[in-house]
């Protein structure tokens, strides 16, 4: 058993199970990649089945610079990730981490949003480490706000 293929297998399993949280396939997103963009919140759709967040890239204008980010349901964000409906407001300055759309269009699967006050809002896609081992971003905090810490076994999969 090769460690590399085993790691890949675990990554695939984790991706598949993490996105069992989503009501549809996340295959339109390249979960092996990560991108970032900074800008201003243009709109928040606090809706089922999924929350959508639209951000205008810093220095850009209107539709041509608008990124669309998809997450999971409001219930999951509230209960498991410590969000509230008021976590994000139109006009907020934010930095977004995301797994980009395969099509190359602007946007992707939301991993996290950092607000100007430093607060970080995470989403399930943050659990998927992008890129080859060692090249990804540093691990983010493992216990979502407002929830009891989870067991060490689960952290091993992050």
């Amino acid at each position, binding site marked *: 058993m090769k460690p590399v293929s085993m790691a890949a297998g675990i990554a*695939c*399993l*984790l*991706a*598949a*199970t*993490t*996105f*069992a*949280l989503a*009501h*549809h*396939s*996340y*295959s*339109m997103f390249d*979960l092996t990649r990560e991108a970032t963009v900074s800008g201003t919140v*243009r*709109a928040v*759709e606090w*809706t*089922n*089945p*999924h929350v*959508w967040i*639209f951000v205008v890239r810093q220095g850009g204008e209107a*539709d041509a610079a*608008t990124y*669309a980010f*998809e997450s999971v*349901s*409001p*219930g*999951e964000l*509230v*209960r*498991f990730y410590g969000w509230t409906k008021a976590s994000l407001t139109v006009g907020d300055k934010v930095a977004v981490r995301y797994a980009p*759309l*395969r*099509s190359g*269009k*602007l*946007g992707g699967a939301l991993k996290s949003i950092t607000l100007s006050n430093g607060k970080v809002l995470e989403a*399930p896609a943050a659990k998927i480490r992008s890129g080859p081992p060692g090249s990804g971003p540093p691990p983010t905090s493992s216990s979502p706000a407002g929830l009891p810490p*989870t*067991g060490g*076994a*689960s952290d091993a*999969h992050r």
Partner: protein
Amino acid sequence: MRTVERVARVSMALLGAFMCAGAAVTAEGAKYTAGRTYASLAKLPDWSGLWIIHEETFIQSLLSDLASGSPTAPPLTPESAAKVQAANLRRLTGQDGPGDPVRSNSEGCLPPGMPDVMRYPAGLEVLFTPGRVTLISEEGPTVRHIFTDGRAHSPDAEPTFGGESIGHWEGATLVVDTTNISPRAEIIHAVHTSGRAHIVERIFLKDPTHLQIDSSVEDPIALKAPWKYTRVYERIDSSFREYVCLENNRDPGGGEPDLTPPP
């Protein structure tokens, strides 16, 4: 044939248990009369509040179920296993594998149905009324009426996503027998029941803040042996949330989502 026999056995057992309970019933009145008073609810355990499978537990359980050789893995027939592979491939790559495209219910905003709905990390509420326990899951949403009034399964029930559930109490444990499940309901993601699935659940408080459900799922087509698993729900400080999947489904086809910003 076996299902019919089982239903008959369960019905007789329920009827027997009911008659032995010494309730004041005549032979004619034996149907639909057990525990039909609000006073009868006082002796039931406290299952109030909102129950949920925590996301971490949900993921760990899935990983455990999917692991090769896992004792909790569903004993899928080769055909079912191929569907799971195809569904996972599509989830990860966007590509359909060989054969017919595999789609899960949720992609089209359909409820997962029984038994898969009971393994989602969605809120679950339990209501006690005389002769009936009602389970309401945010996922779907799904309402399950579990009749505890002594009736048997209907000989001509229409298949539904939640199935037809007949229950009885064994002390503080609710034992639920579910049949008449639609062939559009999912056993696991992307694997549908045959329409002849039979599920037995034992539901009880593991401790004051955890509700345990031990399930045994049989399906003559999708499974080659009964699938037995346990899920533990946590009582959380939250309210039942509305979940209307068609509210803003920007991914109806599962391809490129609608990225248009709202006006």
